[in-house]
């Protein structure tokens, strides 16, 4: 009996567990594999929120594999305890980032942990992991049966093998799957082939690799190895031990297909001379080339309706088609498939486990009505299950069921990060509704959840899954071009010229008709917004008025927006960002989320009363706020105002009556929102990027007053009384204070958001960020006896983990005397110790001028380019809000202009007091990349042991320049700085080179 991973215990947060369930590609792969092997039960994930809970669950049930994801205080101790209680039970570790993995690896006890892998925001690692464990356990038994072939992978970097094994297994399964669905192979052959799926054996050194080659020489299918491998316990970079291994493999199996990977192109020639293929590790086309390699050496979707003779009658590529075809295929075919449990198996593969189980149990022979009754039963079951599931789960897009579905997917691939967050939220809200959990006061007839009487809704969402993206690239031959092209304009042109598959265009046509009003078209990439992989704001999002009279015109606009979202995957900014986060462009794929825009029409303008972002952790708490109280940023109109870091109103949902910005009404006059974003319904879109993007326009607050939306959130500063009045009848400057809502509680916004954040935090198992929009409906408007009155509604647009808060340091910053510090900050972000920075870039105090901020940003970009070229991390010092959209408030750098920065210091001269950055995307990028962010109060210059915050300008300015621009100096140090970030207390110290030795450590 081979070892099978049927029960997996995942020690992780509920959010990660959810991702596994919802990501179609993952579940399909895992379940297809298992169901085809005709095993009676499918593998199941059970999630344990802690080590203690995991141990308890292990006592109660059998688990075949334990995956400890992160956050365990002592992985070794956990592993040992599992092995002590359950000898031989595999335990693997999934680290959340490289650093964690690196820290763990040295200290892993091989007796406790069977392997360490890196989670790169892509769940495909999990099936790879399970198969790795199975292959390891089963190989000898399989060999004994003599059916199995082996691919040996020799790679020492966990970073590389984690990514590579995922790709490799997926490709293998993908091919098995296509074979499975193909018409040609007969049942027995197919079963045989699937069972004999090539096994992958991993070695992490020359010696291990050679042992595997020798042992399994008769079963070898291919060798994939690295050039630099440790041999005899040490790594000699000049030895190219991998090439020696290739030589040995050639001797063992002369015509063995061999693939050598290396980051160094110089080995290519030598590799090729050994009749092996060479892959460059950094190459964006690695995946495509691997696919090619596997296709050459090895040889898989739809339900094929056959008659008992095996003749193909029809095929259904998905559940929707299955329902359609079921109605028309001949009785004999239904009988044939029912008898052979084919429906059940196929449905298993589609993750429809309950249905599959139900159909499997339903014996056709017991159906007194004969085959027709079976047909009706199947159709009914499919529809019922569908209806039951439509709320809170990801349904397959179907025009017939469209009205009932809250969240539908076109295609069968992954939803991407952003859409996954929305799907998760959809499920949580549905669950809340069903369970009437604590905090849910009301569930109305439509199943809508109300918190404190405020209805919480999600806009209807349709997602074009990532397979649509792949299909588009392949159909139009854009893949290689897109990987290589560096010209955004050219990308835009070629992508717009590309054609979407016709069925998709038909679906888009359906959507522009059915979804009344403006549409939001958002990117949702594999890597975007996932826990440790922030790409927030890097890809494009469009809002379309969807108002042209001609359906065809609207369909074309929507199609253009979809193509442009695809194109944005490859824009220069996105590529730079991927590189800086250690990803290959090829790893990235794009799903597209289509939603109605939340809002209301006001003449030619369309917008919600207000939008915002709620975060469960506040990086910049001001009295009486606490970090864990969270923070909400709101602005009138569309959310772009908030997301771009423009003037928004910030408050803590636990202290809505204290808005620090409003403490001084006069200074709030300069800060408060002056403009808002709205969609111009009369905008004729055309089909270019600029045209589509231009539909969202900026309007002055006066327009909102005209539209009657300002009353809900606005106040007036009455000059002669030096007072803020929450009534627009007064004369004076208009302020967006949200007083009517926060102080006078026209709607229970603060308490609702507080609870929503709690729900989100509980679900994700950590700090959360929620994007929202509120439409006040007919609030404050005169009553109209003839029309139904619309109440205020809160729409949740997105939810994602708030990065940078999950692993707050247990190590406090060391006390160093002031003279040893370049800088000390009483307010900082980030966590850990960095001892690699030898380059300092700072805005010269004598040349600083807020009017020159745009120029300074360009100079920073230049220096950043030079530094990233040399792969040198650097520390950046300058005034105001970095990355501000308003260049008066700080230096308006884009991400690509600071992509190589490791630590940022906000150090403003006296008098230049700028509230810390609230641009949420900028922030997420900073915290997720582990970038240290130090904020010094304006004018903090005097080093002193008592000073909580200071910057030793005198020392800094005494250093010789490495290079200078008009406004910047770039200093290179002999020895590195030591940056110590205490994430828990939000404090940081940057020690001068050598200060630690001299200091009190």
């Amino acid at each position, binding site marked *: 009996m081979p070892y099978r991973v049927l029960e997996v215990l995942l020690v992780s947060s509920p959010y990660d567990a959810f991702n596994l369930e919802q990501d179609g590609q993952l579940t399909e792969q895992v379940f297809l594999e298992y169901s085809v092997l005709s095993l009676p039960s499918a593998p199941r994930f059970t999630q344990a929120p802690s080590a203690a809970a995991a141990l308890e669950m292990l006592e109660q049930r059998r688990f075949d594999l334990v995956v400890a994801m992160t956050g365990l205080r002592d992985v070794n101790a956990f592993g040992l305890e599992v092995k002590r209680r359950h000898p031989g039970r595999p335990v693997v570790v999934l680290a959340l980032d490289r650093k964690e993995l690196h820290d763990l690896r040295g200290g892993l006890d091989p007796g406790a942990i069977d392997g360490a892998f890196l989670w790169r925001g892509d769940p495909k690692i999990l099936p790879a992991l399970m198969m790795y464990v199975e292959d390891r356990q089963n190989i000898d038994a399989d060999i004994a049966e003599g059916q199995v072939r082996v691919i040996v992978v020799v790679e020492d970097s966990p970073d590389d093998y984690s990514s590579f094994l995922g790709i490799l297994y997926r490709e293998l399964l993908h091919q098995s799957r296509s074979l499975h669905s193909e018409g040609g192979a007969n049942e027995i052959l197919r079963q045989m082939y699937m069972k004999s799926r090539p096994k992958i054996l991993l070695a992490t050194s020359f010696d291990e690799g050679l042992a595997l080659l020798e042992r399994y020489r008769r079963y070898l299918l291919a060798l994939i190895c690295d050039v630099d491998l440790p041999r005899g316990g040490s790594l000699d970079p000049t030895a190219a031990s991998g090439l020696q291994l290739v030589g040995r493999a050639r001797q063992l199996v002369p015509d063995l297909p061999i693939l050598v990977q290396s980051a160094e192109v110089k080995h290519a020639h030598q590799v090729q001379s050994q009749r092996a293929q060479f892959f460059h590790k950094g190459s964006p086309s690695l995946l495509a080339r691997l696919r090619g390699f596997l296709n050459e050496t090895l040889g898989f979707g739809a339900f094929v309706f056959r008659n008992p003779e095996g003749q193909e009658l029809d095929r259904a590529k998905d559940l929707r088609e299955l329902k359609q075809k079921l109605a028309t295929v001949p009785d004999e075919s239904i009988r044939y498939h029912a008898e052979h449990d084919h429906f059940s198996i196929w449905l298993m593969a589609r993750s429809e486990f309950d249905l599959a189980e139900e159909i499997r149990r339903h014996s056709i022979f017991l159906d007194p009505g004969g085959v027709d009754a079976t047909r009706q039963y199947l159709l009914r079951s499919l529809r019922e299950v569908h209806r039951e599931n439509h709320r809170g789960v990801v349904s397959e897009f179907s025009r017939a069921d469209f009205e009932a579905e809250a969240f539908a997917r076109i295609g069968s691939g992954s939803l991407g990060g952003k859409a996954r967050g929305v799907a998760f939220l959809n499920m949580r809200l549905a669950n809340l509704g069903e369970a009437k959990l604590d905090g849910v006061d009301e569930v109305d007839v439509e199943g809508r959840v109300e918190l404190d009487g405020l209805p919480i809704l999600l806009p209807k969402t349709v997602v074009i899954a990532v397979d649509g993206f792949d299909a588009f690239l392949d159909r139009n031959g854009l893949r290689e071009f897109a990987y290589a092209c560096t010209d955004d304009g050219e990308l835009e042109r070629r992508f717009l010229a590309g054609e979407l598959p016709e069925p998709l265009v038909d679906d888009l046509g359906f959507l522009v008709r059915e979804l009344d009003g403006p549409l939001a078209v958002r990117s949702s990439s594999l890597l975007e917004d996932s826990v440790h992989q922030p790409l927030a704001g890097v890809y494009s999002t469009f809002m379309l008025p969807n108002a042209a009279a001609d359906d065809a015109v609207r369909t074309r606009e929507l199609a253009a927006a979809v193509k442009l979202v695809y194109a944005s995957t490859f824009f220069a900014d996105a590529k730079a960002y991927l590189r800086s986060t250690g990803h290959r462009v090829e790893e990235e794929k794009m799903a597209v989320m289509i939603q109605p825009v939340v809002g209301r029409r006001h003449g030619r303008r369309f917008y919600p009363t207000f939008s915002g972002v709620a975060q469960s952790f506040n990086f910049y708490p001001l009295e*009486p706020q606490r970090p864990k109280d969270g923070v909400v940023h709101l602005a009138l109109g569309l959310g772009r105002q908030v997301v771009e870091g423009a003037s928004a109103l910030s408050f803590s949902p636990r202290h809505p*009556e204290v808005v620090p910005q409003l403490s001084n009404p006069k200074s709030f006059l300069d800060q*408060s929102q*002056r403009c808002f974003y709205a969609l111009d319904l009369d905008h004729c879109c055309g089909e270019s990027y600029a045209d589509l993007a231009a539909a969202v326009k900026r309007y002055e607050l006066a327009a909102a007053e005209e539209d009657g939306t300002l009353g809900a959130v606005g106040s007036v500063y009455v*000059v*002669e009384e*030096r007072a803020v009045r929450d009534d627009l009848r007064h004369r004076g*400057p*208009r302020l967006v204070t949200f007083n009517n809502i926060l102080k006078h509680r026209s709607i229970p916004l603060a308490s609702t958001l507080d609870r929503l954040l709690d729900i989100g935090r509980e679900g994700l198992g950590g700090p959360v960020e929620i994007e929202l929009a509120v439409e006040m409906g007919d609030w404050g408007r005169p009553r109209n006896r003839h029309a139904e009155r619309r109440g205020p509604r809160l729409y949740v647009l997105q939810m994602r983990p708030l990065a940078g808060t999950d692993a707050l340091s247990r190590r406090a910053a060391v006390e160093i005397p002031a003279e040893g510090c370049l800088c000390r900050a009483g307010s900082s972000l980030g966590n850990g110790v960095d001892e690699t920075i030898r380059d300092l870039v700072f805005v010269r105090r004598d040349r600083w001028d807020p*009017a020159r901020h745009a120029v300074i940003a360009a100079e920073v970009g230049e220096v950043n380019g030079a530094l990233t070229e040399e792969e040198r991390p650097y520390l950046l010092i300058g005034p105001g809000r970095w990355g501000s959209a308003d260049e008066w408030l700080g230096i308006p750098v884009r991400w690509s202009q600071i992509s190589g920065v490791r630590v940022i210091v906000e150090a403003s001269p006296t008098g230049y007091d700028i509230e810390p950055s609230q641009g949420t995307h900028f922030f997420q990028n900073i915290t997720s990349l582990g970038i240290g962010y130090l904020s010094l109060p304006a004018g903090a210059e005097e080093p002193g042991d008592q000073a909580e915050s200071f910057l030793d300008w005198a020392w800094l300015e005494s250093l010789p320049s490495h290079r200078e621009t008009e406004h910047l100096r770039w200093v290179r140090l002999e020895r590195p700085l030591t940056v110590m970030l205490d994430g828990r207390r939000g404090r940081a110290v940057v020690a001068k080179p050598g200060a630690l030795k001299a200091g009190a450590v």
Partner: protein
Amino acid sequence: MSQPIDAFMQQVTARNPSEREFHQAVREVVESIWPVIERNPRYQRGKILERIVEPERVLMFRVPWTDDRGEVQVNRGFRIEMNSAIGPYKGGLRFHPSVNLGILKFLAFEQVFKNSLTTLPMGGGKGGSDFDPKGKSDHEVMRFCQSFMAELYRHIGPNTDVPAGDIGVGGREIGYLFGMYKKLANEFTGVLTGKGRGWGGSLIRPEATGYGAVYFAAEMLARRRETFAGKRVAISGAGNVAQFAAQKALELGATVVTLSDSGGTIVDDGGLDADKLAYVFDLKNHRRGRISEYAERYPEATYLEGERPWSVACDVAMPCATENELDGDAAKALLANGCVCVTEGANMPSTPEAVEAFLAAGILYGPGKAANAGGVAVSGLEMSQNSLRMSWTREEVDQRLHKIMKDIHATCVEHGRDGDFVNYVDGSNIGGFIKVADAMLDQGVV
């Protein structure tokens, strides 16, 4: 000469240790009026200096209150009743964490001379607390104000001490304070100024400083037999002071050629007219826009990004924006371009170098102390209206303001004249002092 000043200052320092701001303020006043002291032995004999630096009364009291979480908080309340020689104590209340005895004494000391200069019957005082309204809810602010007034009410009154607002004390706080006073004292009187329009506040408060500065400038010009008519006026700032200064200057026939904000300056060579000014009012008071938008709306105007107006040729310059906005270089540029009059609408907008340059050139220089006293004056007018139980119309208040500015100017001339030239800096310092000093002598040793 400096010997006696130093000796006096040593005494002040010894009696008021660790009140640095107060020492500084006393030194400045004493230095500017020393010649007057020397010329008038009665002041020395009457120990006016020694008496004037000693507050008549200092109140320091506990202000306990309960925050929204139910925790008891304790702050310290102050009222410095500095001098009542010419009227009830008058001066603001400041709620800010930096508030301490030294700072309030310094502010109260300056207030005595400021109020005196307005020619209205107002003594000097100052008060407040180390309470920080930042981060407090409306309810917390209210409970604090009520506790603060629960003690203060017994020390103030329309004929005793009339506090006003200051940093951290705006319309909201004045409202809460007044409400509590009314309840405790069981009387509705003008015990605070800066009240709401519906319950005793005066009209023309926003206009007063800007109008007053122009009235003052007009008086200065009149001494040279000139008027605003046809003058090119460069105004900095675009807030209340600048707007109303521009409005009044236009009324008087001047050509206002500049306005500015922190982003830069607009120059409209043809001058602003009523429509353009209405646009600025809407831009700044309603829409909170940037002044650069003016140049977009009116293409004939140019926008000087990041610059101040002082390089623009003008006859009259009115710095109405912020402290130290006019430095030595700017002063030279103004003088080179033929500027004949500088009137300060803002507080201390000219640096000491700039002031020196203006005095050396002998042009008309109206320091803020005198030229922007309109704001303080209207506070006094609010008191007058309250005690008369009348609400004057805009025109009535404006007329009285005009009269006050004329009187202030006359005081400056009286005490600052040096031949044909008037040193308004000396004039305002000495004028403010003498009125108080003489009243003190008259009232005996009390």
